[in-house]
């Protein structure tokens, strides 16, 4: 049980590290949002599952379920909000090969 929980914790830490590295290394804002959101979501899941395996008690597991559900709903919504705000604040990278939002013809 302990070994399994540590495996999950290490995987979670690795994905967190990857998320930070992605935010640092990616060349434009949209790609930074992508790397940050995906890596931290899976990292948080993995860490939470690891902690749940280390403490297999109902009072821990129930709260961990709440955190997981909250993160899975809120994290993509937050990143889409940042993406839309980035687009609206005219901070559009010039390497896009196609821009459907512009073709829509408003703003």
């Amino acid at each position, binding site marked *: 049980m302990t070994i399994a929980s540590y495996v999950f914790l290490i995987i979670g830490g690795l*994905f967190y590290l*990857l998320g930070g*590295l*992605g935010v640092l*290394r*990616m*060349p*434009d804002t*949209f*790609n930074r*949002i*992508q*790397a940050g*959101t*995906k*890596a931290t*979501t*899976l990292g948080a*899941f993995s860490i939470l599952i690891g902690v749940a395996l280390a403490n297999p008690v*109902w*009072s821990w597991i*129930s*709260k961990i*379920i*709440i955190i997981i559900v909250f993160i*899975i*709903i809120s994290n*993509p*919504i937050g*990143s*889409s909000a940042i*993406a*839309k705000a980035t*687009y609206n604040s005219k901070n559009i*990278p010039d*390497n*896009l*090969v*196609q*821009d*459907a*939002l*512009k*073709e*829509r013809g408003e703003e």
Partner: protein
Amino acid sequence: MKYVTTFVTLLLIYLLLAGFTVNEVILGSIVSAILTIILVKYTDFRINWKFPIKLLKFLFIYIPVFIWKLILANLDVARRVLSPKIPLNPGIVKVKTELKGDLGKLTLANSITLTPGTLSIDVEDQYIFVHTVDVKGKSDVENTANIAGPFEKILGGIFD
């Protein structure tokens, strides 16, 4: 019916937070009843007798696919981040969806955000605007099949 589902959801969250004892159940029911009256105008989902089957479908078909896609997405991010020269061909594409309800479209957009190489920016009527790292398809139809394809079929059976 709307009242019942809102009430049950709120009570479930409260009990998960507070634990199952008699006092908590009584207090949680009172609080959830009061909150249900306040919140019911913000909820707009309909349910019918097929709801349990849909819930089971959601739990046992959608969630495993979703987790598998999430892991693939992270491996994709890892490959991109760790390669010395980052391979990119980004663009914002339009994806058509057949789903009608707001919750269905929200779930589809969230799933698209957490799948490999895509990030949904906005939803307008039947179109989802998606930023992809790698534009593969030539037309909108092709992009739709690539990006929304795997989830559209599953979610169509759940939210319709």
